[in-house]
């Protein structure tokens, strides 16, 4: 019985893989290229260590513990660039955040791995983050309009934006 059922399942899985939109990486811009675009060259990375307190703050924003304890970033006198990753529905979204004077200067989706919800990379969505800053409770000072069918990716982008602003604030001491 198992043998009989296995084969149809395998055929079904293959059919789904062929018919359904495949979950594959869409690299819109390499992170290094994004950083170079911001600074004109690729500066050496700096490191923000996530102390216990910072881990707790990051976890409160993300809704889960941060994946790693060392966050790389790139900065000059005014701006900092944060390449962050967060799961949308099932896969990680990689996004670059440029923070200047405690506000988001601009955002770009660099790698999108989900099979749907790519609309979060469109400028009409991303421009909502322009000049956003942290409000009390480490929330954004504005509401970000969602996208039908991309609710989880929108949520992931918002969480990453809050995290970038928090990290920027901490990195400035």
């Amino acid at each position, binding site marked *: 019985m*198992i043998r*009989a*059922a*296995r*084969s*149809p*399942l*395998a055929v*079904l*899985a293959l059919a789904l893989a062929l018919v359904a939109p495949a979950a594959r990486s869409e690299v819109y811009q*390499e*992170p*290094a290229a994004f950083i170079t675009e911001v600074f004109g060259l690729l500066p*050496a*990375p700096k*490191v923000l260590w996530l102390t216990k307190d910072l881990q707790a703050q990051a976890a409160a924003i993300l809704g889960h513990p941060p*994946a*790693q*304890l*060392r966050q*790389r970033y790139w900065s000059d006198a005014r701006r900092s660039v944060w390449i962050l990753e967060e*799961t949308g*529905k*099932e896969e990680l979204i990689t996004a670059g955040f440029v923070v200047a004077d405690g506000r988001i200067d601009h955002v770009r989706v660099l790698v999108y791995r989900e099979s749907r919800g790519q609309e979060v990379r469109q400028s009409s969505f991303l421009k909502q983050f322009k000049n956003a800053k942290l409000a009390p409770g480490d929330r954004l000072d504005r509401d970000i309009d969602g996208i039908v069918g991309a609710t*989880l990716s929108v949520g992931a982008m918002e969480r990453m934006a809050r995290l970038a602003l928090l990290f920027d604030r901490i990195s400035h001491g």
Partner: protein
Amino acid sequence: MSPRVLLLLFLRRWHTRIGLAAVVFFLFLAVTGVVLNHAAELGLDNRHVYASWLARWYGISAERPRHAFRSGGHDLIAANGRWVLDGRLSGEKFPPPIGLVELADMVVVASSTSLYLYGKDGVLIDRLERNALPGVPVQAIGAGASQLILRTASGTFESSDALSWKRAPRDAIAWSSPADLSAAEGERYAQMLEPGVSVQRVLLDVHSGRFAGRYGPLVVDLLAVFLSVLSLSGAWLFFKRKHRRERH
């Protein structure tokens, strides 16, 4: 008895019978449907069921762990996209490792396109992808004079912090290499590293009937037909009774 009354009795009887026979299935479909609708909030896509019978049912052939990478007091065994580092299980979708080295304050695992930096306590410090590496593919990882060393297609590089890299001399490097697992170790790690199937996928397949194989969806289709019959016969009985009341 008039044909209309006979039809009414027939419908009422079968409406009850079908409803009773299908109530468990309908409840099951309703519950699994509601759970699936909130799968993300419930974190079902990140939860996996690890059971050899389930993997076999899905036709997933389990990869058997054969090698370990060892350095100092640390060891890494990998199979089926999962790692066991110092006895601690990783999540899913981890790449096949090519080596492991222990440095003064961290343990570093390399795959061909990424580096995973762990603290001595096994907590992930950082994950570096191809952009942060001096070259890809990484062919080997080693240690020498407290430095982390990578051999890549573009040359051999060393770093003390995995942030800045410089070309490394080619001598006195202890390259990481796999060691064979004993049969007992292989058996133990094979159980730990069984391939998983996401809870969401299992629920979706159970809900749609695909879990039962070729005829499962047909059974669910049949239930859908029953539900349609119940809806139509219920509506007909309701309006018939209402119509009769109004006439009296």
